[in-house]
């Protein structure tokens, strides 16, 4: 059996595929949306079994180690909560006639395919397979972004598609180069693409070759991460797609792409002769952070606003991993987890808002705390959390990044702090209009369930005050792996 | 015995300032009148005025508040307490340690604060003019005074007035530039604080030039008497302050004999007379300033004080 992996791994790969096949056949959207929740929940359980049970074997194709288990659990969890949210979201879309049942069938199938693709990318032990998984997820999201068939949606999808495909190409070229670098050492054949093999032998690789490889991989997967200047697809894709997809994009896909970059960073770090990947990532991170911070000011579309904030945070995370070292890596991981939870929570809130008010224009939404106290205050909490203010988890990670950076490289900390402050200014400038002031638009109460949103923010709040010891121990362990 | 003597000195001092103050005012008026080739009122005229005012009934504005009626006594009390802590004819007042120079100035500040409020109580235009101009002048004069105090305190290493006087009385101090600056500054401040020409004209009732008079415009009867007396005491205070700091040799030591105390008393009267005369001469020699030229005048005192302090700070290190 070539795939020697635990049943858990099989489960998190097969459940989505099976579910996708099922949804493709099921006519009724209600039942399939419920099943969607169920399937996502099962996947989440499977990933938990991976977390608490044994990590399973290390086949040449699939494997699970401390690094990717973090991402897997996070992904499946957010995937689950998002499915709950979308169950209460999609119905409304059908009522307003933005979607037809046929599209919904497609939607649910694609949702599961996307989850499956990301899980594949995460569990892949084979850099080729990882590439395939990420591309799969990307293409499905492309289809989802365009699902509304409006001018804007189609344009967004098209933009996403072209930029994404070029990213695909570059990433593949990088992968080939890595294989070429491994060829003399590892020898021909499959093992030349098995990550566990590569990382053990990376020391003997030809440094120059993997340098080039890393550049291609960084740009290729960086396009998916949404790092400036490769970000162009991200805001539109977030803004024009269905809100659950925006949540998944921000919460999951970016992480997965980042995960790929991290894998190769480890590879490079293992090779003494190679250039340090740090400076590259730090530069890209700072550029994205500052760029996104400035872009936040002029946004008029609420979902695009938070999409840019995702770029900003991806910048911070990339910066942290670029800095390296136990503290910064820990901060990076923490920040990634916190950002996924917070941002997807925010998108849940935004989705409800957009449905109630019937618009995404920031200018047309105001006084939410007046008309919809729960929703409005949740949005406030979300923005407070994402802006990196205590007592929420993002603050802890930003505190660690900033203070550790300042102690090591004072000059790098200045732009970092400036960027964070600029972003905060922009976010609250918009929040003032959204949550406060004279209410406008419909005051109709929304029947959607706020549970996922509240759960996310609750988790972020708890994490900001108390991190369980096991979680910490294992985060630090991963931080060690990242070096 | 010593304690009794001290008590006597302190009590005498308190009565003395009260009794002498109107006389000093009368003296200044008389001298000014003579310089203007006028007969002028008799020296004891101020006493007569006070007694007449005390006998009169108070005519109170309809909308005057309780504050308006309290303030005269408040202002008087503050001024009197301040004055009774300034050595006149003898140092070593029993309670001199209960308030040093800074506190004395602050007490006068309290009196002014109360007066300024009184000016605004009835809600007339003139009261407002008076108060606002008064606080403007004070906002420059008070810091000037404080800086002058710094100068002396730095020389004497103490803000206790009696200590300052004692030290200046001894010859070790000698002549110091900063003390000279302080003297000039102190004189300017004294003129400003007492509303004398060129800052303000105590005799005028020409509306737009009034400062102090405008504040007390609505007062009458015993209230007015209190305020007049307070003003007189204040003038006395400043003159005796100048006297005891810059001519401290006449002060009687605490433990000295009763005779020397009487000698000190006589010399003190002489000092007052001289200073009052000089004040009158100065006032007749100079014309009243426009209100908005006052800042230059009083600010000058501020600069002098700062200069004196700065000199001391620097010279200490040399």
């Amino acid at each position: 059996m070539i795939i020697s992996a635990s049943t858990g791994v099989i489960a998190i790969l097969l459940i989505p595929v099976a579910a996708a096949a099922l949804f493709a056949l099921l006519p009724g959207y209600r039942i399939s949306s419920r099943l969607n929740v169920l399937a996502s929940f099962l996947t989440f359980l499977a990933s938990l079994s991976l977390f608490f049970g044994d990590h399973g074997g290390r086949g040449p194709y699939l494997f699970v180690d401390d690094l990717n288990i973090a991402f897997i659990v996070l992904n499946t969890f957010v995937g689950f909560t998002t499915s709950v949210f979308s169950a209460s979201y999609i119905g409304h879309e059908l009522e307003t006639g933005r979607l037809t049942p046929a599209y919904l069938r497609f939607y649910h199938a694609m949702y599961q395919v996307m989850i499956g693709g990301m899980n594949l990318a995460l569990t892949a032990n084979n850099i080729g397979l990882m590439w395939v998984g990420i591309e799969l997820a990307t293409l499905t999201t492309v289809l989802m972004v365009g699902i509304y068939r409006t001018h804007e949606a189609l344009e967004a999808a098209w933009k996403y598609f072209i930029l994404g495909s070029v990213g695909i190409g570059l990433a593949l070229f990088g992968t080939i180069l890595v294989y070429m670098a491994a060829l003399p050492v590892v020898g021909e054949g499959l093992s030349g693409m098995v990550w566990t093999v590569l990382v053990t032998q990376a020391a003997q690789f030809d440094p120059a070759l993997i340098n080039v490889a890393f550049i291609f991989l960084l740009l290729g997967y960086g396009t998916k991460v949404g790092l400036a200047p490769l970000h162009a697809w991200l805001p539109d894709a977030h803004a024009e797609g269905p809100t659950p997809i925006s949540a998944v994009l921000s919460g999951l896909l970016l992480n997965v792409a980042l995960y790929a970059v991290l894998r190769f960073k480890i590879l490079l770090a293992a090779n003494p002769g190679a250039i340090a990947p740090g400076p590259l990532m730090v530069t890209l991170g700072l550029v994205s952070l500052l760029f996104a911070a400035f872009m936040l000011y002029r946004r008029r579309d609420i979902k695009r606003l938070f999409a840019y904030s995702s770029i900003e945070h991806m910048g911070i995370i990339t910066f942290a991993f670029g800095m390296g070292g136990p503290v910064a890596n820990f901060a990076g991981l923490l920040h990634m987890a916190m950002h996924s939870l917070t941002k997807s929570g925010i998108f849940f809130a935004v989705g409800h808002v957009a449905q109630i008010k019937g618009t995404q224009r920031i200018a047309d939404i105001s006084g939410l705390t007046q008309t919809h106290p729960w929703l409005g205050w949740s949005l406030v909490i979300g923005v407070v959390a994402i802006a990196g203010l205590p007592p929420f988890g993002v603050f802890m990670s930003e505190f660690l990044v900033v203070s550790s950076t300042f102690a090591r490289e004072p000059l790098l900390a200045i732009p970092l702090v400036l960027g964070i402050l600029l972003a905060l200014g922009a976010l609250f400038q918009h929040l003032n209009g959204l949550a406060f002031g004279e209410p406008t638009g419909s005051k109709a109460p929304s029947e959607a369930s706020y549970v996922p949103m509240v759960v996310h923010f609750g988790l972020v709040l708890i994490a900001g005050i108390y991190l369980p010891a096991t979680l910490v121990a294992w985060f630090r362990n991963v931080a060690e792996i990242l070096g | 015995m010593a304690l009794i003597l001290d008590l006597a000195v302190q009590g005498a001092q308190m009565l003395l300032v009260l009794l002498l103050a109107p006389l000093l005012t009368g003296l200044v008026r008389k001298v000014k009148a003579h310089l203007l080739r006028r007969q002028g009122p008799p020296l004891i005229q101020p006493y007569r005025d006070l007694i007449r005012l005390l006998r009169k009934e108070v005519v109170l504005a309809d909308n005057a508040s309780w504050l308006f009626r309290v303030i005269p006594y408040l202002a008087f009390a503050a001024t009197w307490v301040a004055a009774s802590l300034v050595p006149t004819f003898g140092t070593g007042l029993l309670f001199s340690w209960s308030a040093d120079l800074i506190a004395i100035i602050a007490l006068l500040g309290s009196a002014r604060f109360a007066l300024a409020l009184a000016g605004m109580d009835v809600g007339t235009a003139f009261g407002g003019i008076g108060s606002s101009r008064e606080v403007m002048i004070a906002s420059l004069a008070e810091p000037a005074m404080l800086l002058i105090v710094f100068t002396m305190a730095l020389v004497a290493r103490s803000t206790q007035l009696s200590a300052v006087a004692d030290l200046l009385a001894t010859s070790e101090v000698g002549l110091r530039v900063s003390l000279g600056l302080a003297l000039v500054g102190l004189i300017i401040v004294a003129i400003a604080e007492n509303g004398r020409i060129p800052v303000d004209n105590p005799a005028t009732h020409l509306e737009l030039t009034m400062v102090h008079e405008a504040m007390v415009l609505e007062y009458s009867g015993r209230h007015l008497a209190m305020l007049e007396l307070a003003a007189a005491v204040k003038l006395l205070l400043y003159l005796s302050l100048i006297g005891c700091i810059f001519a401290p040799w006449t002060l009687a030591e605490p433990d000295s004999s009763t005779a020397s105390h009487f000698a000190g008393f006589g010399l003190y009267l002489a000092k007052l007379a001289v200073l009052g005369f000089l004040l009158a001469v100065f006032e007749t020699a100079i014309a009243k300033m426009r209100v908005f030229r006052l800042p230059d005048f009083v600010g000058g005192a501020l600069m002098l004080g700062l200069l004196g302090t700065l000199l001391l700070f620097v010279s200490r290190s040399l």
Partner: protein
Amino acid sequence: MSHGLTFDVAHLLAGGLVLVSFLMITQHRLYALLNAFALQAALLSLSVAWQAYVQHAPHLYITAFIALVFKAIVVPVGLHRIIQRLGIHREIETVIGSGTTMLVGMGLVALSMTVMLKVTPTADPLAREDLAFALSVVLLGLLMMVSRRNAVSQVVGFMSLENGLVLAAAGARGMPLVVEISVAFSVLIAFFVIGVFLFRIRERFDTVDVQALDRFRGERR
């Protein structure tokens, strides 16, 4: 046969690819562009086949076959159709003049040569050549994508980019998944073509000029 011969043939074919890429950059008329691309695809399938022969890797023949059928025949024909429908065969729609394009292309090739030949002293020469040429083809493809305004030529640019990738993949001795990847890419390209086609059929966009696709740029509402 001698090592030299294999090397020369591979070198010849890969170099041919680069040359055709240059040819494509300079083309102004879409038909000519398509023909050039078909030529490139044919060359690609040849070189892949040669690699299969050299490496004794039969599965590469599949890749070669896909390249030949799909890219050298199906796609060009399909695009011909589209162009006819759109009636844009006469358009000349470059952003920068062909001369500059040529110069830039030269620079890119030089760049890829220096990078690759410098960094791969240890790899076997055949692979080095392949990589160097593949990189130049990739870069040239990108150059075409950014220097052309209309969607068809962008598709063509992307496909030549992808030709470079397949070339590299084939050149990588014993690399697994090459076939799968080439298939995956064919699917991608199909997406591309269909996408252009769809937009036309559904009258969503008045032309396939990419700028028109950008007309509703994000927030301009």
